């Protein structure tokens, strides 16, 4: 049974989104995703300043058994990639919703609405349908 915090938003491709006080958003991968991947060995995050479209692959998470793209849940400009992950990629395994955040971005105008993000309950349904 994986952890799905109620106060976050989600995507079908197992990313989570947290709105920060200053209007930027923080993005990572869910507990389900980190568990499926296994011990992470390498993470690549986007550079600050990069502009991404919704669903554009913008990060890579790699374990010994899989290397997965992470897709931008919404359009916007990256303000930061998590610098800790270059040396300690396993932070995502131990704290996927906290210290294991992947990137922060300033959403483009209308991007949040356009993204049609899932609530925690809806994401739980996605997991149940997938059998996880």
């Amino acid at each position, binding site marked *: 049974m994986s952890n799905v915090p109620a106060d976050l938003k989600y995507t079908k491709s197992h990313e989570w989104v947290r709105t920060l006080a200053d209007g930027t958003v923080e993005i990572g991968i869910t507990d389900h995703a980190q568990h499926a991947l296994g011990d992470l*060995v*390498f993470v690549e995050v986007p550079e600050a300043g990069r502009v991404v479209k919704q669903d554009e692959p913008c990060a890579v998470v*790699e*374990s*010994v*058994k*899989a*290397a997965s*793209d992470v897709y931008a849940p919404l359009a916007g400009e990256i303000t930061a990639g998590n610098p800790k992950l270059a040396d300690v990629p396993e932070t995502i395994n131990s704290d996927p919703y906290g210290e294991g955040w992947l990137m922060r971005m300033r959403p483009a105008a209308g991007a949040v609405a356009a993204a049609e993000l899932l609530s925690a309950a809806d994401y739980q349904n996605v997991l149940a349908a997938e059998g996880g």
Partner: protein
Amino acid sequence: MAFIPHTEADVAAMLAAIGARGIEDLFEEIPKSLRASTLAGVPPALNEMEIGRLMSERAAQDGTPLSFIGAGAYEHHIPAAVWAIATRGEFYSAYTPYQAEASQGTLQLIYEFQTMIARLTGMEVANASMYDGASATAEAALMAVRANRRSKSARILVPATLHPHYRRVAVAMASNQGLRFEELPYCTVEGVTLPASLGKYAGEDVTALLIQQPNFFGRLEDVDALTDWAHERGILVIAVVNPTSLALLKPPGEWGSRGADIAVGEGQPLGVPLSSGGPYFGIMTTRMEYVRQMPGRIVGRTLDAAGREGFTLTLQAREQHIRRAKATSNICTNQGLAVTAATIYLSLMGRLGLERTAAAAHARTRELVTALTRTPGVRLAFSGPCFHEAVLLLDRPVAPVLKALAARGILGGLDLAPYYPELGAALLVCATETKTAADLERYRASLSEAMQAARAA
């Protein structure tokens, strides 16, 4: 039936256990319309004595002419121990080391190989090999496109002095992914790429520059100037090198002020026989910062559950069996047995032996050129230093001369007319440490006769 151990009793017992009346029952799911009744084109079996005889006759038919051909495949002495060990069943009939605990021999050998190749090329990391030098070059171009984030053009500059077959393989293997290869002209007097020919690319978006050293003609390129020119413009440098030459020549890791970004080459000279073109192996090396963009297998050292050192395949998430459509390449193999031979060869030859081999090959080629250019109608094509290969110009077409030499049991070299017609009657010759003074004299004398006969005709 060859290699099938079953007796009739075995078959009966097995069918009984399965619950089938005959072996044909086991194929019942296959539509009858698809069953082959006979195989056209497949003769009846030979026993081992018969095939042994046939192969010996065919080998004898081909014989062992005295060969002065280089052009990407080089005859070198191979110590007896190399293949005696490489063909041990435990190396020969082992599989890819996916079950690492059962493959520590192969894995440790590859780790040693990676280390030797990295040191030889002066680069930071090597993979477990590619198919051959040509496909390694194609893969290097694809890798440069992935690694060079600054460049969007996928344009690769390719000197005309790069082996013609390598250029063709690069196009065949990489142009389907949008790479564009543009040829850099060479100087027909010097036989090298002139830095001036790069001028028109000065402000352009170019992804990578290929440099072969020694080049196809055996000539030495100005690798430092070419490397620095590329780096000043954010262009990645791909070196294509001969591993024997690296015992004497500056390795790609030290070219220019920053070194090449990717270095590839043909590993055949390191203990692998000529064998009509294969199996060889491709060398591939790069900087650590690009290691995740490098295709092929890589072995890493790690610890086991008891804290002991061991070896395993690593970074497999880049490979086809995991990443599938997004893999760095579709490559599934490394040239295991050839790599085994090369690692044993490099261990036996060692630092001093490889240096001697390179020096002797260089000396022998110089002696050959001196001897052959004494013959009227034969002169050296290019001024400037070369390494263990050289181009000669004849005063008449090369093909009939080579034919006359072949009739005397000598393969004189490679006729360059199909590849570089602008040079005229050009012949690429090579002599390695395997040639004696008597061999060179025999070539000189036969060439002289052949040229005289052609003149008289």
